């Protein structure tokens, strides 16, 4: 739609770029806790910069070697596995530290860096697929995010949930799996789909204990989409899930004017934004999780959802035009995660973003994703 009115003025755009680039440079000790998951930090920043039209491949050419160094092969008994570790600190001799989320972040970062050579020559799809395969639980088809560092089996101390199911599927899709047989070379698709569907709540969304949650819902729908299994949901079920998602848009209009002030999470200034669960406050990241989910079920987004109020909420309430970046909600400091998903939501509504993989459309197309 309105391509003639850009989302950001040149001045604000430059502030966002500066905010994002700062996270890739020298970081203070307060960032120590991200040391073991650095691929996430790099991906959030690169994805946002790419969505803002920055030329990552050129600007960060000199960092390619470092990025690739986080892709490692590790041997478990007689089998070779490969994937990404969270960062150099996680490179520990005789220790399996491959991580499913860091593997997806690492792969997508190299897509954004247009590193064709990595995908053609460095990446070992077989051993990477084997790592993904080992993360799947035999008993219910779900995925954990790491292996036992000595035994190489799915870790028994990790959680298994829709996040890791989605990540496993997105990894396999990124390395080239398209048909059901492609996926079945590495994972048990039937039990995975069964697990995903078992997480659907009575009220339409997906979640862990019966309470639907927009983040988990986005993971479930994105995974089903990439697996080409959306039709495992009946049209009635899709309709109910869609309504649950549409209902997450917060508003102050109509009968909502009478919303009792006793609901401490209700704020009329949240109008247009999205909440992650019933009766919670609007939050930047849920604009992405909800809009992505809706667009998967109903691609003609604008005839289903009023996107202008979402945009207004993001640009006027959670965008920080002073420091650059987006925050979770009004008056909080901007952070990298919410900046990434705030920009992603805006670009998704503009139609230039691949929500299921969470990268700009042009970057996905270049790699046939």
């Amino acid at each position, binding site marked *: 739609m309105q391509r003639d009115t850009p989302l950001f003025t040149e001045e604000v755009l430059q502030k966002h770029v500066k905010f994002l680039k700062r996270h890739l440079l020298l970081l203070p000790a307060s*960032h120590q*806790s991200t040391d073991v998951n650095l691929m996430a930090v790099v991906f959030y920043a690169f994805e946002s910069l790419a969505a803002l039209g920055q030329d990552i491949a050129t600007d960060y050419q000199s960092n390619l070697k470092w990025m690739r160094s986080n892709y490692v092969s590790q041997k478990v008994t007689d089998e070779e596995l490969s994937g990404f570790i969270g960062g150099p600190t996680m490179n520990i001799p005789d220790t399996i530290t491959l991580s499913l989320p860091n593997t997806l972040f690492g792969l997508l970062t190299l897509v954004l860096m247009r590193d064709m050579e990595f995908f053609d020559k460095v990446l070992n799809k077989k051993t990477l697929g084997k790592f993904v395969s080992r993360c799947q639980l035999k008993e219910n088809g779900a995925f954990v995010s790491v292996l036992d560092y000595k035994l190489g089996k799915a870790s028994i101390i990790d959680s298994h949930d829709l996040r890791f199911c989605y990540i496993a599927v997105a990894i396999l899709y990124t390395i080239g799996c398209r048909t059901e047989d492609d996926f079945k070379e590495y994972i048990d698709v039937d039990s995975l789909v069964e697990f995903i569907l078992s997480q659907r709540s009575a009220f339409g969304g997906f979640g862990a204990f019966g309470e639907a*949650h927009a983040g988990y819902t986005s993971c479930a729908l994105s995974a089903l989409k990439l697996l080409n299994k959306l039709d495992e949901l009946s049209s009635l079920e899709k309709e109910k899930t869609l309504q649950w998602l549409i209902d997450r848009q917060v508003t102050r209009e109509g009968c909502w004017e009478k919303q009792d002030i006793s609901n401490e999470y209700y704020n009329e200034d949240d109008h247009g934004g999205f909440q992650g669960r019933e009766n919670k406050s609007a939050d930047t990241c849920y604009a992405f999780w909800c809009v992505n989910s809706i667009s998967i079920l109903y691609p003609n987004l604008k005839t289903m959802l009023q996107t202008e109020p979402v945009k207004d909420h993001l640009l006027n309430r959670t965008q920080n035009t002073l420091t650059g970046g987006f925050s979770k909600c009004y008056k909080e400091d901007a952070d990298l995660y919410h900046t990434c998903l705030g920009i992603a939501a805006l670009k998704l509504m503009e139609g230039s973003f691949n929500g299921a993989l969470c990268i700009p459309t042009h970057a996905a197309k270049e790699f046939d994703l």
Partner: protein
Amino acid sequence: MFDIEDYKDVEPLPLTQDVTNEEELCRIMYCDEYKQVMALMRRMISKDELSVRALRLNSRAIELSPAFYTAWNYRFRIIEHLLKEETQLQGEGHDASYMLNKELDWLDEFTLNNPKNYQIWSYRQALLTQLYPHATFSREHPIMDLMLDDDSKNYHVWSYRKWCCAHFKTYGQEMAFTERFIKRDVYNNSAWSYRFSMLKHSDVDLDQELQFVLDKIEYVPQNISTWNYLGGLLQMMGTSDKLVEQLLQFSKKYIDESAFAYEFYARMSKLSGTANGKDVAQMYSHIADIDPIRDQWWNRKSLQADQGK
């Protein structure tokens, strides 16, 4: 207590990288303690030393880096190993459950300080399932209560509680438990959703349950959690004519002030046969007026009703 002097014989595995500074992304200015603890931790994980001093170092490493996924795995192996040693010594008056309780105490404290951490609950589940056959549900209550006092909608805690019920096969207190939270905040969707998932495990009288939720709707009509709950309950009870008629009259009272009430009313009207497709279509159009941000959705529903879908 953690004392760096205990590790003098451990050769540190320092956090260095073999690329030049220009190539590195996100170079962190580590504090000295982080560098020191992590260098030792990496070496000890690599050597897989399972000992009491390794556990002390591990606690410090996890405090400094709560998301250090391999450290949690390492911790579990240490506890598992120490427990085996302890069990062998049990004849000499050693008590293994004492050690596990101490570990849970540490975890409780860590949980309170890191409420959003992802590893704590699955680590806890592993301790209880793999190492602690004599654990009790009541030992788990205080930490969950404290966490929910702080954030009554903490997703991890509600999930964990549901897991506990299945693990300890104990469902008796759950309806009363959710009622406490609903009384405090009728909008608490976690409590309502949890209550719904517990219904099938409880022996509650469904008519009484119906009255419970109707009272809460009467208290605040524009509350999606309660209308959802009512819808779910109706599905469990079955749509007898009498019940549909009762809910038709009930929801009608609130159609001016609540879009949820209006939608429920439209559904009941259709079910009872008091409204045809055209009437229902009109009702949906009206909801578009009182819930204008979703006008496209309601207009679509209206069109579907008109076409007899």
